[in-house]
């Protein structure tokens, strides 16, 4: 990854020198090297502070929607980050031409807080960016594991057992909204859960209002979530959110034959209609 860091700094310097971008979205060191912080380099001198290591797990596409439309941005994009960018392009939140995508093929990223290696159990395991302008390293071999095998256990349990599982997990939610705020595709302003007229979910973290928040959020993400896992990593209460959004993603893929965030020319499934779409839900 030192090679990637070096190349990232070089490309950032070039882009900032020529003024072709206003900012390069990358990472800098935090209070120590194992806790990097997302960082927008704006001057050439900022480029020296850029780092890239196995702890640079954050989906930087999250920050793209903070910029004025039309701002030229370069972004260090890992696999899932690139897919999130694709969804943002599909949804016209950003123009392809306004992005310089610095693709980073990588695997073996680590969660410093939990001391775990991040893999297909908690992410979509998209090791290679699906869209890029400049690739900062060689493509990695595509993994032969499925990002949905982690669902097998839950899927094998009956309806009542699964409902019990989610009621237990979601009662732990403290409604900090780290999950929503970490998500690159949760950009609604205002978010339904912040509305007071009407109030869709109570402010207090009762199970009922937690269910209202999470179930609605997962369905708002159907066909859009790119399985980056940032929400699950952000959660201070270790709620396995990835199990839910993986299930929603899997169902969408099976019903509509399309994977979220792969091709900028596609339209996300929930805002599109094809004659051959399943009408199971109506029957």
């Amino acid at each position: 990854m030192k090679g990637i860091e070096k190349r990232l700094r070089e490309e950032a310097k070039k882009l900032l020198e020529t003024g072709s971008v206003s900012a390069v979205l990358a990472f800098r060191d935090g209070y120590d090297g194992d806790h990097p912080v997302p960082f927008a380099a704006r001057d050439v001198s900022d480029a020296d502070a850029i780092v890239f290591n196995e702890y640079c797990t954050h989906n930087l596409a999250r920050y793209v929607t903070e910029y004025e439309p039309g701002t030229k941005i370069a972004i260090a994009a890992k696999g899932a980050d690139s897919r999130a960018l694709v969804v943002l392009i599909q949804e016209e939140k950003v123009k392809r031409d306004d992005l310089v995508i610095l693709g980073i093929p990588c695997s073996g990223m680590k969660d410093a807080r939990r001391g775990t290696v991040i893999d297909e159990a908690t992410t979509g395991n998209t090791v290679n960016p699906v869209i890029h302008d400049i690739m900062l390293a060689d493509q990695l071999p595509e993994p032969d594991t499925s990002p949905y095998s982690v669902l097998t256990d839950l899927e094998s349990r009956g309806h009542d057992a699964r409902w019990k599982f989610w009621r237990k997990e979601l009662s732990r939610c403290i409604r900090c909204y780290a999950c929503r705020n970490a998500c690159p595709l949760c950009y609604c302003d205002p978010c339904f859960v912040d509305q007071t007229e009407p109030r869709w979910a109570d402010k207090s973290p009762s199970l009922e209002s937690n269910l209202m928040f999470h179930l609605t959020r997962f369905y708002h993400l159907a066909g859009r979530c790119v399985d980056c896992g940032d929400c699950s990593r952000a959660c201070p209460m270790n709620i396995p959110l990835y199990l839910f959004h993986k299930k929603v993603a899997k169902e969408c893929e099976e019903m509509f034959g399309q994977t979220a965030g792969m091709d900028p020319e596609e339209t996300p499934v929930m805002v599109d209609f094809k004659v051959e779409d399943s009408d199971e839900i109506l029957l």
Partner: protein
Amino acid sequence: MVKKIEHDRIQEIIAALMEKGILYAPVEDEEGVNFHLVDDPARVTLDFYNTVQGPKCAFFPQTEELIRYRMTHEGADAAEVEPDESPQVLFGVRPCDVRSLAIMDELFCGGGIVDPYWKNRRDNTTIIAYAFDTVDTVDFYGSFGIGAADDTGADILMVKVDGDLLLDARTEKGTALLAALDGLDEAAAEDEKRFAAAVEGAGALETRRIDTDCVARDLPGIFDSEFWQTEAAPCLNCGVCTFVCPTCHCFDITDETLFSKGRRVKTWDSCMFTDFTLHASGHNPRTKKHQRLRQRVNHKFSYYVTNCDVISCVGCGRCTRFCPVNIDIAGIVERARKRASSQQINNQ
């Protein structure tokens, strides 16, 4: 008079404490070790560095019912929920977190209006502090004059030494509680020595330090600086920092009604949320995230000092440990000081 119990028998002491009142203690749960209302002694643990959240939940729960009501044809039939007066025990609290309670006292009962929900519980709670025996790289409680085995504000100080828990009362409340717990053994002279040695050893532990001297004086000068935009750039504006923090205390009051029945509740709120300062008019003075981060840092390190004579931070490090993007408040304060001093130099 030190009392002791083998650490392996901790469940006995927990069960005994549960009989004395509502017990909040560190419990091993899916999120890690966190303060919970204890219903099962087997789940209490002292095997942790610090808990996910601070112990403020024992006095300031995330949801507090204030009023229950029912709509009838005649109008609203409402009844206040009486503030709780049950005796409580708070077990296994690290010294920095014990200090947080005194800081919150300034707000909730420091002057003018007294919050009965907070005060009742504080008055009725016996606090058993739990000394640190190691330091990690994130804590900075030493910056506030808090020691690893500091007993300020504790009714009982507890240390874990070899396989034993040694407890020593620091107040009358503490003495009374220890006397009432049958399962504890009287400590031998040897144990008294071990207790003293543990406290001394903890006294030598050094956390990282930030200079807190006159920080309240420095911060206002850089209020308009672009410093805040830079520092706030990675912030996600979630509420993790405020919800794990032992000194954050902002709350909201809302009515939760279903058909004709409902309750008025006080719930934790967060200055980091986008709608925290949203006015009924629709105006929002803090729409940008740098304004909110600036507010949080200034509130803790400047405004609270002006209003209550103490910094509203105990350096527990939780906000840093749990921030999804690794923002470090200690680092922000240090850089703010540097910015303030270089600005002063430039202005001269």
